[in-house]
């Protein structure tokens, strides 16, 4: 009989074993697929069993397992320890579940690629690192997972490394997130110095005694951790790497850059929620960043032409929603939105992968069109996922998690600008989601697909779309019963929502407003892109319109700004400092050694008589010294 702790340890260890096997052994292709997807399937099974044990356990407990002690230096003894509570349960189930479907999808998607083994090895390593990240019981181990997923993201964005642009995108992602990671590390040092431990459970308990609300140290630690979260989750101002990260294979975008890794920041903030409760300034900043990111990325998504870039901006925007929720203290709502988002957004990406796969690697949505009739299965599934994104009831997937966020923003921040932003975000989301669907899947057929999507790709896609649509069901039940079991479950490890989020007249009015705005967004997209496409073309042709369109398409010129502000000065500095100033101090000893070497090598003439003379002179000097002293 294996106990729950062992099951928990198996969840990250199995994909890790898969990675090691794939990295070391040369296997036939069928075996590679079996190991790659099989290890994740087994990991999912282990995670489900561990989660089941946890769910059945008493309310306040957590499943814990310490595998071994990592190091022990002067009272600092972080362990390789895993801890499963409600928050990490939700995350591991999403990671392994979505991960498994995407691995299955990848078997067909990557078939024929020469880097098949490398692909699955990296994907397995990613799953292992991500599980480590969300299960770690101390911040150091969490940081290990954090860097591990960053590494895998880098490796997989640059997977097709022969194209130089892909390599550049990979480096960009790595370097931009590094800004956040460095701040995160400094934050860890600060926390350790203050509390003397990095064990999450202990640390959170200790800082509550140590710091009062608004303590400058708490605010500083909160801000540093926030910087790490912002980098990983592609929020303002470090969001520029995510659209370029679409250079990787589409399943990678679905798994890493939509469902899991980019929400690591959400996990971090939710996990460290007591710290952010102690630092109201940092928490307000979370909300402001989330809101601004959501609106900017939503607008940028409206102007993209590349199928995957629309989805990338949409991801940034939806994570902005989660940050907004976290920022106002509605941690449960933020995590609930993470779950639904992971499901429907990875579904959308898998759909994009199918479309790209069947259209000779075409990415431009305006060269598509009418795909609904050419690929009905993919079309319906994509419609389902897009409706989830647009959050239209009765497909209440995101509707309820979004409704919960809007409700909490109203309750906790007293309305105002953030609330207006959240409301406006609904309109934008619906508009870009439906624009994507209308342009690519409706209208006249512009390009005949060159092949039919294989069943092994269609099935995971449809499954994820369906799951995404059904994910809101518990919330729908909650509207009638007044008891939300997801919220109740998360309440085990997160602060509960402000007040019961149940049906009342004000709630109904708010929901009606959200639905109305979503429908208005869809309607606007319908009119602009299906009924009167000339209108958009006309607007884009005017000088103002074209500059606005260009600005939005470039993601509000952040790349341009950073290029001027950071990249060019840095390159300039490198250029003028080609002969490194700091190196000068180290050049002196080198020069001295070189001079001595040259002087001594003069003695090595290769002439026998010279050597004899030297030996004789040495002997005479030695004798003279010995005799005369």
């Amino acid at each position: 009989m294996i106990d729950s702790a062992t099951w928990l340890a198996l969840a990250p260890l199995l994909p890790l074993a898969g990675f090691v096997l794939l990295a070391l052994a040369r296997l036939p292709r069928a075996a590679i697929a079996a190991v790659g997807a099989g290890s994740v399937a087994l990991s999912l099974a282990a995670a489900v069993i561990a989660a089941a044990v946890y769910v059945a356990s008493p309310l306040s407990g957590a499943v814990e397992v310490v595998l071994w002690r990592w190091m022990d230096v002067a009272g600092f003894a972080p362990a390789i320890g895993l801890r499963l509570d409600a928050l990490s349960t939700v995350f591991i189930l999403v990671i392994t579940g979505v991960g498994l479907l995407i691995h299955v999808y990848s078997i067909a998607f990557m078939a024929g690629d020469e880097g098949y083994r490398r692909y699955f090895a990296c994907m397995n390593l990613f799953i292992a690192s991500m599980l480590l990240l969300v299960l770690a019981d101390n911040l150091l181990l969490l940081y290990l997972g954090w860097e591990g997923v960053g590494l895998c993201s880098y490796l997989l964005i640059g997977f097709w490394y022969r194209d130089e642009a892909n390599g550049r995108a990979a480096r960009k992602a790595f370097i931009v997130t590094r800004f956040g990671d460095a701040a995160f590390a400094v934050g860890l040092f600060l926390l350790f110095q203050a509390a003397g431990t990095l064990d999450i459970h202990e640390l959170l308990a200790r800082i509550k005694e140590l710091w009062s609300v608004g303590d400058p140290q708490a605010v500083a630690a909160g801000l540093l951790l926030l910087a790490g979260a912002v980098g990983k989750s592609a929020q303002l101002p470090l969001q520029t790497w995510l659209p370029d990260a679409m250079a990787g294979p589409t399943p990678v975008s679905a798994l890493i850059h939509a469902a899991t890794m980019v929400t690591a920041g959400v996990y971090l903030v939710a996990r460290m929620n007591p710290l952010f409760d102690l630092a109201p300034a940092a928490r307000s900043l979370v909300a402001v960043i989330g809101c601004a990111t959501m609106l900017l990325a939503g607008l940028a998504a409206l102007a993209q032409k590349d199928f995957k870039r629309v989805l990338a901006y949409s991801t940034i925007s939806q994570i902005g929603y989660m940050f907004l929720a976290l920022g106002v203290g509605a941690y449960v709502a933020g995590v609930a939105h993470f779950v639904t988002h992971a499901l429907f957004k990875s579904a959308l990406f898998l759909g994009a992968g199918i479309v790209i796969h069947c259209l000779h690697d075409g990415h431009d949505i305006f060269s598509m069109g009418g795909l609904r009739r050419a690929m009905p299965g993919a079309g319906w599934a994509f419609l389902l996922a897009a409706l989830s994104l647009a959050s239209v009831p009765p497909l209440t997937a995101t509707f309820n998690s979004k409704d919960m966020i809007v409700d909490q923003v109203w309750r906790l921040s007293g309305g105002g600008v953030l609330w207006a932003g959240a409301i406006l975000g609904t309109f934008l989301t619906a508009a870009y989601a439906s624009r994507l669907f209308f342009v690519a899947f409706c209208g006249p057929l512009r390009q005949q697909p060159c092949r039919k999507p294989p069943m092994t790709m269609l099935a995971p896609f449809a499954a994820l779309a369906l799951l995404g649509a059904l994910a809101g069901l518990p919330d729908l039940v909650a509207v009638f019963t007044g008891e939300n079991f997801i919220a109740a479950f998360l309440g085990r490890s997160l602060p509960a929502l402000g007040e019961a989020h149940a049906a009342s007249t004000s709630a109904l009015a708010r929901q009606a407003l959200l639905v109305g705005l979503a429908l208005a967004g869809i309607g606007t997209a319908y009119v602009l892109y299906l009924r009167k496409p000339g209108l958009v073309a006309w607007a884009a042709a005017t000088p103002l319109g074209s500059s606005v369109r260009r600005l939005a398409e470039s993601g509000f010129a952040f790349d341009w700004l950073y290029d001027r502000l950071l990249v060019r000065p840095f390159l300039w500095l490198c250029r003028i400092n080609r002969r490194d100033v700091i190196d000068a101090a180290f050049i002196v000893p080198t020069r001295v050694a070189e001079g001595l070497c040259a002087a001594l090598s003069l003695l090595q003439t290769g002439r026998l008589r010279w050597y004899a003379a030297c030996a004789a002179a040495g002997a005479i000097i030695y004798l003279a010294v010995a005799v005369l002293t």
Partner: protein
Amino acid sequence: MPTVPLEYGMLLAAAVTLVGLTGVLVRRNLLLLLMSLELMLNGAAMAFIVAGAKWGQADGQVMFLFVLAVTATETGIALALMLRFHHHLRTLDADRGGQAEPPGGTKG
């Protein structure tokens, strides 16, 4: 029995050694170099004998025999080397030997 004073013997030994050293330093012909080297060794050996005579001990003469044996072997090896040297380079000039390329290799 009248004996030669120690100083005279030692001075002679030093003179012989110096003559040998001078020969080593100024000669370029390997054969003459070898002969000069023998002179130096003889000078040293003479110092042993003079010192042995002074203190009336046989050790000095034993040491001389050792030196003789070493010299004999050394000369044998040196002459063999010289034969190879001449065979390769068609000269016995020590300075040219130092600048020659080793056979079959390149200069490191």
